[in-house]
Every structure is written in structure tokens, then in C-alpha cells.
């Protein structure tokens, strides 16, 4: 300050971090932690209970199975997290996942590169179109991605001869190995997923783009006035979400060694649930990549536990998962609300 007539004085309101009225910020931090790690706590509790109750839970095989089968949903949820943090939603991921798998299986006859690039290109393109319609034409994400969901299903049906053809992946191809091989006892898809999550977390937390994602979700108008490239950010997140769904589909096809046509129904809702359970606010502006991973694992463990119980009627299973989802979001909302209180 060069000015002399305004002696800067620390008054009561101008508090440094240490002078903060302790209660306020501690409670704030505590519930922030609760929201951030509530799902993690739930996961740990579930795992503990499950491993004490069922001997077959904490076995290497079971864990490895759960890891691999969660990997695909996790990759989809990763893209979804970016979208939801911007305050949007992507309903097309389930269809894109299925389409990605079919295209990968079809493309695998021309080599691994095609098997990977074709689904990425197509799903990424659909994601890009979603983004353009949402950011440039300012259409509601819900409805745009709903249309994309139909579109992707339509494309899937038309490339599989109305669903009657299933393309197979050659078991000996490199692409198939990508889905099946193990590295240090852990499946390759799990490694890929882990790498993507690290990358995603760094991008969201530590890159400028990540800041824009939060800003757009937090207050779009303000972000625009502050000079954030709102449209570009939105287009990017929907493209990323499309790419993630396509990649997950491709990896899944490599794992299943075929482009199964009936996959992905309801996957968008699963991914959204996982992201929300992980502490990301559907209103946007707040969320974590790690939370989404925890959310996916939690869903998986719940399903596994329901299977371990074994005697649960399939109808009751749904009641239980619905009730569980309700309990988690209520807890989360309650924590979030406490934090929002002034």
C-alpha cells in the first residue's frame, strides 16, 4: 500500500487463519471432511463388516474380481465427475459404453490401434457434439445427453444388424491381452483405471483447466465475467466423458473378448450414483475424483455383500440398494447443509 491515510489495521473482522473463531472453522472443516470422506468411512465399515461376516470376502480372488469389474464403471464415473462438477449431467455414457465395446470388437480385426481409436473417436465425437449443443446452443445437458443416449443405441443397433451380430475379439490378439493380462497379479484394466484416476485427479485439482471446471460449476456467470472460457470448458468435459465411456467400453470388450450388445443399460444412473455418493455435488462446483472411485467401490462392495448373503430375493435386492442410496445421500446432504450454514 502506498497510501498513507488508510492505516491498515487488523480489526476484529479481519482475522488471520490462526485467530479464526475455532468452533466455526473446525465444524466447517469437520463436515467438509465428512462430506469428502463419508463415503470412504462407509466403504471401510462395509469392508470390515463383510470380511468379518463372510470368509470368502477378503480373499485375493474376490478382491481381484471386484477390482476388475469395478474398473469399467470407474472409468465412466471419472468422466462423469468432470461433467457433474461443471453442474451438468451425462446420460449418454451407458449407451456410449456399449457402443464403444461393439466398435472396439469390430475394429479389433484391424489391430489393436483401430480397436482402441475407433471407439474413442466415435464416442469422443458424440461427446463433443453433446458439449457443443450444451455450451454453444445452450440446451439443457439432461435433454441433450438423453438424445445422445438414444442416438448411440441407434448406432449400435445399426452396426450390429439390429443387435443380431456380436463381433468377437480374437483371443490371441494384443487387444484381448490388454483386457485379460495381469501385471503383478492385478489385471491390466485395473492398472489403466488407476492411472487414469491419478491423471484425472491431477487435472481437476492442479491444472488451470480444473479450476475452470470448478468455476463453471460454481457460478457460470461469474466464471464468464472472470474470463473463464466457459464454453470451451463445457465442451471439453463432455468430450472427456464421451472418451471415458468409449474407452471403458473398449477395455470391457477386450476383457469379455466380445462386443456384447446388451451392455450399459442403466449404467449412467450407476455412474451418477457413484459420483454423488463420492461427495460431488450435483449442483456443481464441488467434488473430488477420489470420491467417485470410492463411490464405485462402495457400490461394488454392496453388490458383493448382497451376493454373499445369497438368499436375498432379487426384488428385495433392489429395495435394499434403493434404501442404501437414500441413506447415503441423506447423510451427505445433511453434512453438506451443516457446512453451508453461515
Amino acid at each position: 500500500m502506498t497510501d498513507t491515510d488508510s492505516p491498515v489495521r487488523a480489526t476484529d473482522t479481519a482475522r488471520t487463519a490462526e485467530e479464526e473463531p475455532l468452533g466455526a472453522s473446525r465444524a466447517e472443516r469437520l463436515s467438509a471432511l465428512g462430506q469428502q470422506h463419508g463415503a470412504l468411512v462407509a466403504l471401510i465399515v462395509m469392508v470390515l463388516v463383510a470380511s468379518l461376516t463372510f470368509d470368502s470376502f477378503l480373499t485375493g480372488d474376490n478382491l481381484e474380481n471386484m477390482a476388475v469389474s469395478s474398473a469399467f464403471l470407474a472409468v465412466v464415473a471419472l468422466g462423469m465427475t468432470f461433467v457433474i462438477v461443471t453442474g451438468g449431467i451425462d446420460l449418454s455414457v451407458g449407451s456410449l459404453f456399449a457402443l464403444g465395446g461393439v466398435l472396439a470388437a469390430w475394429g479389433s480385426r484391424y489391430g489393436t490401434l483401430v480397436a482402441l481409436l475407433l471407439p474413442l473417436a466415435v464416442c469422443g465425437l458424440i461427446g463433443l457434439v453433446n458439449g457443443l449443443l450444451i455450451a454453444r446452443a445452450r440446451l439443457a445437458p439432461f435433454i441433450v445427453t438423453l438424445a445422445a443416449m438414444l442416438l448411440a443405441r441407434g448406432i449400435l443397433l445399426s452396426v450390429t444388424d439390429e443387435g443380431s451380430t456380436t463381433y468377437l475379439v480374437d483371443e490371441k490378439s494384443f487387444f484381448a491381452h490388454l483386457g485379460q493380462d495381469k501385471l503383478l497379479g492385478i489385471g491390466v484394466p485395473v492398472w489403466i483405471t488407476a492411472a487414469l484416476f491419478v491423471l484425472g485427479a491431477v487435472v481437476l485439482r492442479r491444472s488451470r483447466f480444473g479450476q475452470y471446471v470448478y468455476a463453471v460449476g460454481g457460478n457460470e456467470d461469474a466464471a464468464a465475467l472472470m474470463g473463464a472460457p466457459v464454453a470451451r470448458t463445457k465442451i471439453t468435459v463432455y468430450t472427456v466423458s464421451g472418451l471415458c465411456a468409449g474407452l471403458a467400453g473398449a477395455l470391457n470388450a477386450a476383457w469379455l473378448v466380445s462386443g456384447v450388445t446388451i451392455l450399459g443399460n442403466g449404467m449412467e444412473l450407476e455412474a451418477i450414483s457413484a459420483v454423488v455418493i463420492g461427495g460431488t455435488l450435483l449442483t456443481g462446483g464441488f467434488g473430488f475424483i477420489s470420491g467417485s472411485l470410492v463411490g464405485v467401490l462402495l457400490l461394488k462392495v454392496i453388490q458383493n455383500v448382497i451376493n454373499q448373503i445369497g438368499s436375498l430375493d432379487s426384488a428385495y435386492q433392489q429395495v435394499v440398494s434403493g434404501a442404501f442410496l437414500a441413506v447415503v445421500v441423506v447423510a451427505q446432504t445433511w453434512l453438506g447443509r451443516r457446512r453451508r450454514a453461515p
Partner: protein
Amino acid sequence: MPSPVLSVTGLSKAFPGALALDRVDFAAHAGEVHALIGENGAGKSTLIKVLTGVYRPDSGDMTYQGGRVRFATPLQAQHAGISTIYQEVNLVPLMSVARNLFLGREPRNRFGLIDFRRMHREAAEALRSLGVRVDVTRQLRSLGVGAQQMVSLARAVSVDARVVVMDEPTSSLEPREVRTLFGVIRMLRERGIAVVYVSHRLDELYEVCDTVTVLRDGKVVRAGPIAELDRLRLVSLMLGREMGEVRGQGLTKFTGEHAAGGEPVLRAERLTLRHTLHGVSVDVRPGEVVGLGGLLGSGRSETAKAIAGALRPDSGRVVVAGTPVRTGSTPAAVRAGISLLPEDRKAEGIVPGLSVRENIALAVLPGLSRFGLVDEARIDRVVETFVKRLRIKASSPQQKVGELSGGNQQKVLLARWLAMRPKVLLLDEPTRGIDVGAKAEVQKLIDELAEDGLGVLMISSDVEELIEGSDRVVVLKDGAVVAELTGDAVTEDRLMRAIAAAGGSDDD
């Protein structure tokens, strides 16, 4: 005179139903503080938004640093060196203070990743130099409006700008922070930066500005050195009325004392709210205007919200005309006759997508309905009355409130509450962002309402307004009542001292 850094000629911008800018010429020079004034809805914010690439003009040319430009986005304007504090606080509430300050220009390490340690350090420094000491890792929303405004200011001045535009930066600042702001403005001027300054507080204009452009109904009616115009002349130019008429009306509309008497119509007793209020008690008698003073964050807004049921106090009671009101319920408070004009007009006051008419009728709706069915004719009558009485400027009662200027939005909100015929009116910054003409009207209205026997509790950061308008001033500090000024003690001097004493008592 050197050529201006930023100038526009023949700039026009029309909105559906309103010609916001009509062939405006405007020029800002380096090292000059340029006041932009006008009534509510005159087009000031629109001009600024056109200058900074938020809106695209319908016609007109813009020159910046000698070249013709047209900014397509705020980002382009920002990169070109025009930084802006927009009228409504425009930051991202869920992000931390530091992230808000540095959005889009975060310091990065050699891997291209954000260097948070450096960012936090620099953010804390930037804010400290403006007299704000907050934990910069806190979410912005945990700060009061004033502190948020200071963050906007810090953001605007911390870039290397040629032009700094400030649209009503002081509307939610307290005197101490206003002084800091003026310090910053002078520093900018010394550095040869052009400052465009919008405010409805005339004193401020005379204190810091060099030149002035007066807008009326989207047209420039006067431009030149501010020293050539006295206050009266300025006001008459703004309002488009004769000097004599303006002089006759005077500038502040408060008459002062009211004949308050009898039992308090509102008794708030020992309101306590976790971390913010610690046993605040306030009484308001019918016909009395009680001012609520204090620094930013002292809990004034929280007190008002707790009384109005928008916050649920942990303990304490609210009694209206002898009957206790269920706390923590706005419908209950409204039924009991309490009305709150909230501080954050944009987020908590107006319903932007609904029309002026619907907004005015919103709270009183059940009263204008029979068996749950709306009586349109009665609504029309009520709306007409208030649009006239408060001189609300809208193309029609069907216009969306979100399209009105800030001042007119405030009037719509006042109308919403007056239509309720409340017993107690809680006003949180009632004249914030309102032009002198409207301000005088609002003040006169407050006076009249008090005379009609309404109890008024008024929060204002404008000390003058607080002194002249209130019969009694209750001073808050850290969520507790620390002083109460009555009768002759209600003076600017005493108030400032009360606030300062409260603030200085535990100074380090």
C-alpha cells in the same frame, strides 16, 4: 489533452423492450478517475458490459490504446488490460478465496501444475494490503458480502491493467474499507491507470473522481471535469429535473424524529446462533426506526434473518405485538407481520424469471386469493398502486424482473413487502445500489411508513443514512450488542466512536 486509453463513439445497445444505450460517446484517459453516473436503469452497467465484452453492441466504435477493438468475451478484454469489478459480486462461492483471486492466472510450477503454496501466499498478501485478513483457503461463500467485494477488488487490481472499471464497488463496504478502496484508486491513478468508477454516493464521487459522464435513459447528457458541477447540478442532470425542483426536495429525505411510543411491536430476545450471534436483543416500537450498526461480519444480517425466520436461532425468542413467533420459519414470521428486505437482492430477493407483477404479488398472494384461486383483478390493482407509488421503471408490469436495473429491482422488492402491510419491516441495506432520486424516495417512504406506525429495523453501511434515518441505533460487534445510541447521542461522531471502540477493544 492526450488521447484516451479507451473510448467509444456512437455506441448503442437495445434489449427487447428497452434501449439501454443510445449513441453513447465515452472516453477514459490514463491517470484519470472517471465517474459514470446516472439514475437506476440509465445504462451504466450496460455500458460497462459492452466495454468489457460481456454484451455485443448493436452499433458504435470502440478504440483502445489507439486501435479499434471489439471484445467478444470478458477474457479478451481482460487480456487486453481492462479489468472489471462488476456490480453484483461475481465470484464463485464454492471455491476458495485464493482460487477466486487467481482464477485463470494461477501461478504454475515447471510441470504446468498450479503452485498452491505460492498462490495462497500471494493471495494472502494481496488481501492483506487491502486490510482484509482471511484464511484464503476458506470457501468464498463463508465470507460476508463486503469481504467478497474486497476479494473482487483485489482480483481487479492485482493484474497488470491499463483500465480498471468499478461498478458500484462501495455499495456493500463499510467506511473503513471505503477508505482502503480510495487509497487503492489513488494509487492506480498515480500509476497512470484509467479508472472508471460508478457509484450512487455523491460524496465519494467528489472525493476521488476527476471527470464525470452523466447518463440518462441511455444517453450521455453531460461529460466533463467533475469540479465544474456542483452536487445540485449533478443531481438535476441525472434526474432530468429542474435545479429548483431538486433543491426544493433536498437531498436526504429523512425528517428525523418520529413519535414512537407504546409497547414494542417487535421484541427479539437473546438470539443466539452458533458462531455468529451471542444473545442479541433488539426492541422496535411502532413508529420507530431502529438502526443496526456495526462492522462487516458483526452479525447484522444474521440478526435480521434470525428475526425473519430465515435462520433458525439456537435459542432466543421473537415476539411480535406480544405474541411469540415460531422461530426458523419464514412463513410464520411473515404471517406474524415481519417482512425482510434481504441484503443479497440478486440471489435472495428477486425471482428473476417472473414478471414485475408476479414479484410484487408474490408474498401477498394468499391474501389476494380465494379458496386458493388467484384474484387477477385485485393483483392488478395492488401492482398498479405500487408501480406508481414507488415509480418503478419497467416497460410493463409483465417485464421480467431480472431485466430491470438494480435500483428498480429493489423497489419491486419493497413493493412486495409493502403490499403485505407488515407490522415490522426489516431492511438490510435498503438503499444499496439505488440512485439518489430513488434513494430519497425510499428514505421518504421509510419515514412515512414509520409515521404510519410501522416498526422499522434498518441495517445500513451508509453511516449518514443510519444517523439521519434512525431514532435509535444499536451497535453490534461479533454477534453481540455493544452499544445503543438514543436521542441526541445519535450522531455520526458517536456512532463511529462506538463502532471503533468496539473494534479496537481487542486489537492486537
